[in-house]
């Protein structure tokens, strides 16, 4: 197990580097409203590598690097030229088009090349788990250099991102600075995508910046919040991947999603709490009742229309209170139901044991005869199938219970749902007639 922790050290430092530069660049990206520019630039760079590859240069060669750089410059030029003052075409449209066309072109370009598709995949997928110490060090140098560059010219870059009109008024050459911005951005994104993959880089870029702007309008605090949250996501994501034995990149991305939700709640909660304290609690209560009643009504209708479908709420209720289903089964069925649940649990424990044993046998850590080995495999397969059979039995019995629950549960649930919905409607109409101000959850 220590091995696994050791494996995560280098990726952890790489994640810190990613946090450092991307939380900052994300701020610019959000302010400029060019959310998907990283995907587009990464794809253009990939197209560059592809062309070099087709011309006979290796993927890691200098020629490939410079070709991809040249393509990134081209992308930077396109994006800096496509910024229009009050134009009718949003820049996000241009970015989307650049992304789609360069992705399509790359597919066409490598169609005939051996291992073509895989090469494109490598360039864009990356794998944070396998990043090497040298790569991380290169990242440190590159990000450090670009960070320094941005720090030196921070006033101009920030002014153009935050307030382009003012920058224009001051006589800044916006297109030129935009070009520099996109080039430096392209450098960063191209290298980080190769290491961490598109999804992870996108999360590092956007989520900390968005969370930062939840809490502040000033650049400093936003950046600080972004860095702290990016750090937290890296720590939690990597440890989660270790503890629960999950693919690393995907775990970090989902952690970012969780952090975004939590900070959104943290952002809106105090305001809403103070409103509740100010005596507006009933609004929230009736809002919840309204939402819940709609869900209940729909679920009840679905149960009545299609009792054999999957009813998540009833499944959850079963797990918590098995008596609900048992009440709808005959005595024999009840026995089978309970027996299957028990047998699945036992089979799972048994399977775990057999799989461990199988692993030990394959690695030669445990000696058994060839005949026993065959029997082990057969038992493994057999147990799996039996457990599956039990699950099927359980499913069938559950379906039977559902069919019987169809109207007994469905009609009352529908009536309650409709009643609550009607009541909350009336309540809201009454509140509106009293002249409460309309409220939004997020502002």
């Amino acid at each position, binding site marked *: *197990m220590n091995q696994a922790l050791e494996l995560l050290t280098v990726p952890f430092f790489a994640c810190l580097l990613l946090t450092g530069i991307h939380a900052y660049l994300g701020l610019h990206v959000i302010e400029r409203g060019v959310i998907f520019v990283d995907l587009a630039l990464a794809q253009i760079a990939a197209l560059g590598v592809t062309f070099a590859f087709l011309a006979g240069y290796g993927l890691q060669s200098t020629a490939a690097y410079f070709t991809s750089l040249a393509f990134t410059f081209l992308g930077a030029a396109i994006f800096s030229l496509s910024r229009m003052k009050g134009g009718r075409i949003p820049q996000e449209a241009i970015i989307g088009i650049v992304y789609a066309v360069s992705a399509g072109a790359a597919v066409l370009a490598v169609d005939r090349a051996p291992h073509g598709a895989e090469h494109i995949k490598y360039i864009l997928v990356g*794998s944070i788990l*396998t990043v*090497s110490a040298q790569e991380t060090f290169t990242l440190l140098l590159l990000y450090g250099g670009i960070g320094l560059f941005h720090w030196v010219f921070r006033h101009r870059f920030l002014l153009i991102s935050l307030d382009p009109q003012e920058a224009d008024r001051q006589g800044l050459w916006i297109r030129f600075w935009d070009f520099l911005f996109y080039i430096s951005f392209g450098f960063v994104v191209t290298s980080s995508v190769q290491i961490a993959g598109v999804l992870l880089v996108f999360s590092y870029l956007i989520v900390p910046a968005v969370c930062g702007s939840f809490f502040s309008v000033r650049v400093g605090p936003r950046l600080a919040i972004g860095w702290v949250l990016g750090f937290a996501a890296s720590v939690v994501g990597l440890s989660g991947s270790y503890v629960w034995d999950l693919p690393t990149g995907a775990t970090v991305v989902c952690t970012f999603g969780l952090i975004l939700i939590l900070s959104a709640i943290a952002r809106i909660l105090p305001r809403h709490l103070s409103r509740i304290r100010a005596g507006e609690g009933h609004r929230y209560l009736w809002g919840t009742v309204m939402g819940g009643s709609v869900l209940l009504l729909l679920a009840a209708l679905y149960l009545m229309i299609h009792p054999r479908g999957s009813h998540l709420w009833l499944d959850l209720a079963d797990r918590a209170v098995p008596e609900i289903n048992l009440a709808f089964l005959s005595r024999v069925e009840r026995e089978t139901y309970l027996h299957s649940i028990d047998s699945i649990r036992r089979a799972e424990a048994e399977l775990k044991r057999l799989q461990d044993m199988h692993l030990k046998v394959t690695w030669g850590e445990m000696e058994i005869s060839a005949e026993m080995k065959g029997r082990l495999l057969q038992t493994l397969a057999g147990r799996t199938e039996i457990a*599956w059979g039990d699950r099927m039995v359980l499913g069938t019995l559950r379906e039977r219970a559902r069919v019987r629950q169809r109207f007994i549960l469905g009609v009352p649930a529908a009536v309650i749902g409709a009643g609550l919905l009607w009541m909350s409607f009336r309540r809201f109409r009454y509140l509106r007639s009293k002249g409460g101000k309309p409220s939004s959850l997020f502002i």
Partner: protein
Amino acid sequence: MQSLLLKLVTKAAILLLTCWIFWPSWGIPETGKKIRVVTTTPDLKALVEAVGGDRVDVESVATGDKDPHDLEIRPSHLVKLKGAELFVRIGLDHEPWAGRLLQRAGNARLFPGGEGHLDASRDVPLLETEVPRAGRTPGHIHGFGNTHYWLDPANARPITANILKALSRLSPGDADRFGQNRATFLDRVDRALERWLRETAPYHGTRVVSYHNSWPYFAKRFGLEVVGFVEANPGVPPSPAHIGSLIERMSHHQVKIIVMEPYFSDSVPRLLAEKTGAAVVKLSPSVGGAEGIADYIALFDYDISRLVSAFREAGIPKRQESGR
């Protein structure tokens, strides 16, 4: 003047068009018509060609240098299938796209159960049939046994037997010739197999880790023991714990070789190699998977020579041939 030119151009165009319409039938004697065969993989193509010789015209849908699981269907595939008389596939769910492909091509005799549909796995002794068939399986695991059976040269015998039957049915006049072709081919395979076994014999029982579970037939024939897989669940990136335990076991048991297909990402295998001192060997699972692999025998020539030189470089001790 201009109208004369126009007339000339029109006449030339009509002449060209006529030629084009009738061109395919020119100069091809009826008796020399080849049997048009479409196979799913280049390995089957090589085997069909070995039996059919110059009497067949074989095309493969997948190429050897790409993962056959994510094939993208192209219009040209459909055109090939529309005109084909025989469709040969690996079967056992190896080609999840085959059903869709046949449906779209709409050539009824190639449909499963039709006279032009050959499932090459029919008489092959399969491995790993103990995998449970029912229920959910993580990633893509084949439910009916491992599908990479062409990687055992001995399986060329049952596969070509069925190909011979199918081709002879389509062209009964050539049956003897096909039979002779097959006998010559199998003779070559047998002699080559003797050579391959001789080369691998000193390394009998060597433990290797493979990327994907695609080498059990190959391993069984050439005396390798595949003790672990880089992918815990096929198609899903491995978790740190899986890689960690693999590193521990590989170091502890002195496993020095990681076998993988050239088309998978080698980032995790490289990491494993770096941590354990093992070597990553890219073996081609298919004809056409690397330069110079033009036919079925060349495939094994390539793989065996790469493997043996990797064993030699990794300093794996040779064993006495009487070992097993």
